């Protein structure tokens, strides 16, 4: 029998997430995703260097459903990691470390990520003729 009335560790279904820890985890996750995504950048440059055939193949892949989903995920991760990275750089100077500022900058990062993603895709898709 468990007689100790102390609470158990957080149960995920009732756990109240905090913006701070969620953004921290997301920074690491998007970092890993971007490291994998950097292969996409190298593949693009490599395909262009290899000639018209490989480049056409790569462009077809990027324009496909999977390619567009990957590209969209990559762009969100890139904007998020960049914005939150700037937030980290500001922290490194010793500024904005109180709880109020941490939450304010956290929401700013979310809004900036959404705005940059929307603008980038709106301009990109309009140029693509959609």
């Amino acid at each position, binding site marked *: 029998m468990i007689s100790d009335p102390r609470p158990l560790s957080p149960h995920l279904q009732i756990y109240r997430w905090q913006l701070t820890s969620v953004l921290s985890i997301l920074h*690491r996750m998007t*970092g*890993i995703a*971007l*490291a994998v995504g*950097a*292969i996409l*950048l*190298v593949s693009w*440059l*490599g395909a*262009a*260097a*290899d000639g*018209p055939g490989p*480049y*056409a193949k790569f462009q077809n892949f990027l324009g496909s459903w999977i390619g567009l989903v990957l590209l969209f995920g990559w*762009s969100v991760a*890139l904007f998020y990691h*960049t914005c939150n*990275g*700037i937030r*980290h*750089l500001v922290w*490194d100077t010793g500024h904005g470390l109180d709880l109020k500022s941490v939450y304010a900058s956290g929401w700013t990062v979310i809004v900036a990520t959404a705005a940059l993603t929307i603008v*980038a895709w709106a*301009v*990109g898709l309009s*140029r*693509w*003729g959609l």
Partner: protein
Amino acid sequence: MAMTRMRSPQMRSPLGRAIGLGSAKEGVEHWWRQRMTAVALVPLVLWFVVAVIGLVGADRAAMVAWVHNPMTAVLLILLLVATFYHAALGLQVVIEDYIHGEAMRLTVLVIMRFLCIVFVVRGILAVLKLALAA
């Protein structure tokens, strides 16, 4: 008795003192390089995103002409180096955090670094080939 209970004047365990290994003093350097590459990547990433959006719908000839510009080639190589350096530093921390077996950790670290080097070299060579093509 009382001897073993006594607090060490340094904040180190008896075992730690016996083994006598200090910190490797590499932490600051890692931290600093991660920040340097991060600062470099902010303008490079913004430039790259704007440039790539400009290339949407363009054919290969336009893309090749873009890389042929010396400024583009320089910025692309800087982007590749900063990206894979930053990635290697970040992935190193992730690997060190989650892989606890010494042999496995070392193996994954080495593979990760080799892959980063392979990709950055492949990228730089591609840029050079396009930039230097007549």
